[in-house]
């Protein structure tokens, strides 16, 4: 029997075991091939990337994907090698040389890699076509789908070269392992007994302090200008936080977790329970060899959730912020009365019979003096705006808010009171009580006190910042001084917010009006500008997810397979099937729960840090952060749970055989 036949027979005999490896390798290569095809798809790249940004991101993500595939296959290969040490020992006893064994392993790897590659190319091509069609539909691109080849020959040569490189790496790794193993090692390695872990209380405390320190630094970002991120500098603090979290994680797993286990072992009233007496010592006994995997898993879970959470937040937040940036469906500043009339007539004609409301609002632009003028007063964008307040009549405010489907929270104002519309949230209400001396013309000024601030701006920030709500009487007084008047037209109702027809009609009529803004247009723009970025991040997230899930699967299956004899002993001692299953379940749960909990904590702090550092908060509602993060955590948890169930099922089978 030659080596190829032995290799093939071996794969056939262990098909159920290898099938998962083959499926996961195929899956990983499918992602690789789909990604390579996508980045080599000139037809779509031409449309979605004008400045080379997407190509650059593709090359960054490609490095991640390649690194992962190599790591994943390296990891799985080592897992299989460990499992087969005894078998290799038997080959050695029969007279096989190490060179023969290496060839046998290489032939098996070639079978698995080629199988995975063919499946990966087919599935990856299908996925690529699906994703391209999705992008074309989402962005409304006009491209000839027929011009995109089903299987990209360039991508095929790329995956082939890549597989060759992976095979070479695996062969070198196997050669290294075989060379340093003696015959005795080969026969005994599978059951080598580990040195027990001695927990270290000092390192445990240092680990916990490092973790808490890292979290505290991440939270400090919320303080904004007063935080150490601003006072000391972003990069040194970012580096310190990263080091603290990583060191904290490593020490927690190497010292604190064994310390807790030791405490359980020492408390006999806790230890002497039918599951605990098996699971706790087992975990303790093996934590040394699995600590590295646990640390890797924690960092992978944290990485996956952080990237995923930050992405959903980055999609959701600007989308939601449109409600404040352009509160009406469409609005514009009237620059030319005649043109405005024409535009509204064209709109009426274009929307033939559809229901919508048009409201004109006059804002009075005035200057003021005060020792507590708000930041909004002097906001200026490239000289388009001069410092000042834009006063609005309270009755106009109520009407406009109603047409936007909102309720006003301001009931009444006296002539000496005003409400300031804030751009960013101000939880400390620092403007309430400020007195502004409004210059109402002819050298006369009147004092108003800020009684309230609000984030319910009825007019978009492109047309009015530092909006001051005043009583109708005060408005009339200011108006009599003939200040500069800004007329803003707001259009609401019907399909005007969800459909682009009304915006297109107005844009065609007033092509030069820079103040014309539409919620629909803004939301479409957000999707178009960022979809390719999100897609690439989705690739990276999927890769992280597969990595996490697969390592968990193989780690647990390997542990349970290793313990099969123990379960047999337990059955003889009177453990029934359900008790054995419970033991297996507890054992798996530890490996799933620790990375999940610690990884999730890491990522929550990372996302808080990301939001405070890089996102412009105009909504001022903490709840807005919860939904996208909950979505990311929810999706991640579902996938994680599926992996848990599959692992549990396989481990039950392994334990009961």
């Amino acid at each position, binding site marked *: 029997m030659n080596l190829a036949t032995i290799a093939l027979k071996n794969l056939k005999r262990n098909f159920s075991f290898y099938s998962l490896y083959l499926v996961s390798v195929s899956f990983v290569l499918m992602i690789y091939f789909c990604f390579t095809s996508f980045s080599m798809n000139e037809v779509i790249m031409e449309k979605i990337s004008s400045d080379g940004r997407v190509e650059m991101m593709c090359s960054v993500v490609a490095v991640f994907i390649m690194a992962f595939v190599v790591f994943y296959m390296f990891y799985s290969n080592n897992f299989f090698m460990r499992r087969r040490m005894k078998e290799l020992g038997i080959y050695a006893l029969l007279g096989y040389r190490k060179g023969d064994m290496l060839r046998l392993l290489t032939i098996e790897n070639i079978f698995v890699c080629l199988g995975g590659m063919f499946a990966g190319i087919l599935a990856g091509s299908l996925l690529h076509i699906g994703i391209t069609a999705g992008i074309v539909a989402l962005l409304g691109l006009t491209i000839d789908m027929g011009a995109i080849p089903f299987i990209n020959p360039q991508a095929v040569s790329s995956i082939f070269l890549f597989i060759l490189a992976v095979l070479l790496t695996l062969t070198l790794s196997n050669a290294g392992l075989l060379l340093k193993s003696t015959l005795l090692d080969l026969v005994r390695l599978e059951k080598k007994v580990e040195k027990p872990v001695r927990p270290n209380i000092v390192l445990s405390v240092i680990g916990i302090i490092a973790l808490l320190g890292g979290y505290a630094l991440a939270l400090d970002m919320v303080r904004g200008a007063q935080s150490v991120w601003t006072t000391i500098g972003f990069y040194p603090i970012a580096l310190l936080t990263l080091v603290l979290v990583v060191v904290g994680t490593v020490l927690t797993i190497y010292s604190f977790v064994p310390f807790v286990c030791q405490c359980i072992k020492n408390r006999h009233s806790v230890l*002497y329970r039918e599951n605990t007496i*098996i699971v706790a*010592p087992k975990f303790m006994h093996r934590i040394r060899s699995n600590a590295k995997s646990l640390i890797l898993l924690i960092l992978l879970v944290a990485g996956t959730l952080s990237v995923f959470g930050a992405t959903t937040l980055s999609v959701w937040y600007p989308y939601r912020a449109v409600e404040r940036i352009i509160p009406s469906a469409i609005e514009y500043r009237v620059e030319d009365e005649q043109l405005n009339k024409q535009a509204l007539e064209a709109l009426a004609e274009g929307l033939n019979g559809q229901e919508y409301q048009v409201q004109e609002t006059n804002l009075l632009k005035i200057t003021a003096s005060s020792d507590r003028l708000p930041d909004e007063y002097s906001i200026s964008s490239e000289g388009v705006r001069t410092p000042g307040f834009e006063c609005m009549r309270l009755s106009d405010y109520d009407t406009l808010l109603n047409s936007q489907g909102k309720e006003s929270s301001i009931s009444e104002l006296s002539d000496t009171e005003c409400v300031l519309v804030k751009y960013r949230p101000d939880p400390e209400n620092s403007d309430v009580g400020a007195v502004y001396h409004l210059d109402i013309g002819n050298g006369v000024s009147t004092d108003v006190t800020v009684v309230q601030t609000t984030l319910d701006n009825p007019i978009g920030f492109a047309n009015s910042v530092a909006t001051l709500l005043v009583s109708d009487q005060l408005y009339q007084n200011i108006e009599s001084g003939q200040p500069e008047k800004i007329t803003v037209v707001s259009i609401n109702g019907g399909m005007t917010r969800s459909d682009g027809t009304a915006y297109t009609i107005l844009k065609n009529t007033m092509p030069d009006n820079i103040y014309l803004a539409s919620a629909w247009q803004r939301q479409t723009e957000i999707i178009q500008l960022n979809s390719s970025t999100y897609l690439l991040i989705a690739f990276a997230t999927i890769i992280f997810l597969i990595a996490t899930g697969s390592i968990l699967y193989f780690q647990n299956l390997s542990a349970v397979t290793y313990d099969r004899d123990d379960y047999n002993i337990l059955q003889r001692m*009177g453990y029934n099937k359900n008790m054995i299953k419970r033991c297996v379940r507890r054992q798996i749960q530890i490996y799933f729960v620790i990375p999940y909990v610690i990884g999730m904590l890491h990522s929550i702090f990372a996302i808080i840090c990301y939001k405070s550092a890089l996102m412009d908060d105009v909504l001022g509602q903490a709840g807005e952060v919860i939904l996208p993060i909950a979505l990311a955590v929810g999706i991640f948890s579902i996938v994680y749970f599926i992996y848990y169930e599959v692992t549990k099922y396989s481990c039950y089978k392994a334990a009961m055989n």
Partner: protein
Amino acid sequence: MSTLLQVMDVTKVYKNQPKPGLDHVSFEVEKGEFLGIMGASGSGKTTLLNVLSTIDIPTSGHIVMGKTHIEKLGQGQAADFRKNNLGFIFQEYFLLDSLTVRENIAVPLTLLHKPAKEIDKKVKELVELFGIDSQLKKYPSELSGGQRQRVAAARAMVKRPPLIFADEPTGALDSSSATELLTALTEVNHTLGTTILMVTHDPYAASYTDRILYFKDGHIISELQRHNAERRRFYEAIMQESARQDEKR
């Protein structure tokens, strides 16, 4: 003495095997008896142990312990029966590598939901009885073969089961460790009144028992009673019986 275990006309047939593993076997075991089962490889010793200990099911016949018909137990009931009534000592020790000596011995009592204090007390008694009280915190890998087998014996005894099955318990031990273990088993048998059923092919180990059943091709072919004789005299009788059986081959 009263009867603890009744084996009545038990047969075990395996698929694709021309001869039955056990062929209409019947015998009784008295309470407090130390019974030896001897025979060559393939004579049916291990099959008998498996069906008696609920690990396997006989094809026909009855096995009764107390009022329980062992052959009728379902999987869950069989596990409970093992938990409450049986102890095991195997040639390969079958200790749990990741548990210390104390934890290994404590497992059967944990399964019976005994309070922690009682478990610690009983573990202490047993390790003193088997002379392994200085090894409590060690892992099986840190012990010699003889010490491991004594841990296995202590684990089998700790819950004071009415019946202990020992499958070639001295098979992997050197002669002095084997003697230590057999002496300890005899002491437990005498002091605690534990019934022991030991499968062995070693005449020396068998000389510690009260009675021996010889198996061949799934049948009991002869029986040897000790009748309170000295161990050395019983050993000679066993050797003579073995020589007699060799002549019949």
